[in-house]
């Protein structure tokens, strides 16, 4: 029997036991998810005792398919994407045993939602220049500053936070990575309205927020390294997999199929070119995931994200033109605070506007091209005048 078959048999057995002990039809959703975590079937590539079995990442898809077929609940992954995709792998890689035990289980079940406190008004692409300060105070840290572009902040129990702990050294060296309790009285969350009319993101104001030193992830001054692990995972999460005609291309292809009266040769030529590009991007993502199954995420994810953003923007623009008169109608400008991001949801006008963010969030396409050029192709880095200057002496 091959290793592959053996793994599958073993996973089938574990899933059967889980389902027998916790029949989905008669088990509380959270109880089921906790049991799934404890059975090591949450994310099989995590270690035993932390929701996993120490297997290769790709086996999880098989477990999920078995559970879905049995009518089991899921952990609503699109609601807790930041926790799953960014906080969890970072905590696993750099956290202590106590931190693993405290955070990972309720993160995975969705009992505790996570958000990310990285970007600041003065530190976007140049994240390492961030100005939020953390001062030591006994066995606590006192944090003050302003963060921005934080999705789910109003729902989150915890945040991953990067703050400056030493302003006297160059910017990359003075950062430290923390877990921030969003229920601290010093945390204020304000919605940040965007061009779609809704407020998917927030501004977060931190005023003397107290963080126990036991919530520090990694060493003091190691924050940049830890944050980069998070950001590499972010790019992988964004460039994630979809079936053929999944995502925006499916929406536009269906608009073409459903509206023969609106077809023109010029629109067809653009549609077919984009269909090919979307399909090739899907294959490229598939290939990247096959690579990831045997290794850690590297800078290649940056390339994937540039493509994803460009195609989404071109497709959503094409869709509006394809809709003719209906392209002028917009569903709703009312301010809302959605729980989930919907790149392909709502109407075409919304999709067109929302897609503009795809080449900005999670690293602008310009910065990602620098990353590809420097880390993949080995081209010289951009001139940096701020590299060896203490952060406090930088012009701001």
């Amino acid at each position, binding site marked *: 029997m091959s290793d592959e078959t053996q793994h599958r048999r073993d996973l089938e057995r574990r899933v059967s036991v889980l389902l027998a002990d916790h029949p989905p039809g008669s088990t509380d959703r959270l109880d089921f998810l906790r049991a799934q975590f404890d059975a090591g079937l949450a994310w099989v590539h995590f270690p035993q005792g932390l929701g996993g079995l120490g297997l290769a990442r790709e086996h999880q898809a098989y477990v999920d398919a078995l559970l879905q077929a049995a009518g089991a609940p899921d952990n609503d992954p699109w609601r807790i994407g930041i926790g799953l995709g960014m906080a969890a792998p970072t905590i696993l890689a750099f956290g202590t045993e106590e931190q693993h035990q405290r955070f990972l289980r309720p993160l995975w079940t969705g009992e505790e939602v996570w958000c990310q406190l990285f970007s600041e008004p003065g530190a976007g692409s140049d994240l390492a220049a961030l100005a939020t300060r953390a001062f030591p105070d006994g066995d606590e840290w006192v944090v003050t500053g302003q963060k921005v572009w934080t*999705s789910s902040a109003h729902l989150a129990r915890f945040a991953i936070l990067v703050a400056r702990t030493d302003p006297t050294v160059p910017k990359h060296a003075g950062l430290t990575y923390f877990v921030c309790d969003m229920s601290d009285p010093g945390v204020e969350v304000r919605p940040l309205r965007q061009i779609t009319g809704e407020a998917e993101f927030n501004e977060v104001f931190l005023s003397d927020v107290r963080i126990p030193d036991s919530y520090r992830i990694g060493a003091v001054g190691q924050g940049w390294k830890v944050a980069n692990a998070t950001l590499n995972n972010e790019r992988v*999460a964004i460039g994630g997999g979809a079936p053929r005609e999944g995502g925006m291309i499916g929406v536009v292809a269906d608009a073409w199929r459903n509206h023969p009266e609106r077809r023109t*040769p010029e629109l067809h030529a653009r549609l077919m070119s984009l269909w090919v590009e979307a399909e*090739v991007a899907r294959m490229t993502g598939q290939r990247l995931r096959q690579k990831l199954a045997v290794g850690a995420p590297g800078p290649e994810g940056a390339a994937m994200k540039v493509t994803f953003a460009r195609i989404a923007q071109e497709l959503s623009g094409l869709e509006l033109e394809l809709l003719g008169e209906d392209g002028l109608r917009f569903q709703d400008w009312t301010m809302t605070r959605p729980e989930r991001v919907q790149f392909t949801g709502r109407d075409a006008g919304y999709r067109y506007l929302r897609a503009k963010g795809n080449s900005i969030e999670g690293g602008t396409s310009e910065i990602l091209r620098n990353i590809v*050029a420097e880390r993949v192709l080995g081209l010289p880095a951009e001139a940096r005048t701020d590299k060896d200057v203490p952060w406090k002496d930088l012009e701001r």
Partner: protein
Amino acid sequence: MTAVPNVADNVTTGLAPASDLVLLSTEDEQALRDSVRALLASRCTPDRVMAIFDGDDSLRQPLWTALAVDLGLAGLLVPEEAGGAGGSARDAAVVLTELGRVVAPVPFLSHSVVAATALLPSGDRELVAELASGAVTVALLTPLTASAGSFSAAVVGEDIGISGRVPVVAGALEAQLLLVPVRVADGVELHAVEADALGVTVAPVVSLDMTRQVADVALTGVASRVVVGADAGDSAVRRALLVGAALLASEQVGVAERCLEDTVAYLKQRRQFGRVLAGYQALKHRLADLYIEVESARAAAQYAAAAAATDDPDLPVAVEVAQAYCSAVAVHAAEECVQLHGGLGMTWEHPAHLYLKRAKADQLAFGSSGEHLARLAELVGLPPA
């Protein structure tokens, strides 16, 4: 600060799903790549390839013998029991990427891929074995521009023999044997004809790409023998052209990746205004975009090769996607290579023009971009206006 696509929003369609194929190289494929690359590095140097454009053809025959016979690549796609190496389309893709990287002037694509695939249904075991051993080089008599969708046999059978004209045939100049699709009452037969037989004219064309020089072939009352009957001839030719198109994509990846590598290396050492050109952000971003294209083309080409290797039901879609995408990437990479080498890239002495000529000729091979997109539109249910 992030957002993830919501798969729950996906619209489902009646579209045939993509297949889950392995898109990374296996260890065996890497070993094959290494041995082909090593041979080409010593035998197929840029100066020898460029000399072909000045009429020095001395590289061709010995290089083809080394690849076809010594490495056994003539019969790569022929099963072992028929005298071949029993390799898969994935292996042929590996070879083509390497050949593309050096613009090798050998008829691997026309002989080992296209002719071999067309001949596989034949009961002529002796001929298949000769093709597989490399003892006889074979070319399928179709224009290099013919695609599986557009192909129609131009040669007809008459009492005195077969007659017809087929323009721009690749591999015909190197071939000792021509495999001729002949239109008959009940379909298409494949006939075998000696290239030097009475009534056969193989006229060399001064070609855009002299490293894959094409020929205009005329047959006038030529005596021939049937090697694939009318029941299977048409599908054999279409299959050969489909597999040829699938694997051409891997050659295009080879052309593109080499252009990128050479351009990156050049810009890292070329200095103007007191600094290396590779440090200018305008150029860095162009190279990053090119890298993204090349890696995307690699995935598309590997998907097509994997689909051909397993005769996957998704092969027709895979081929049109790979050709529509990879052709343009190879041309773009070669054009960037010329442009970013500046004046040097425009000279006869620098090999950049080899890549440009191969890439542009490849773009016309096995169907134009418009044909690929039109066929794809049919396959995926997106009818034109």
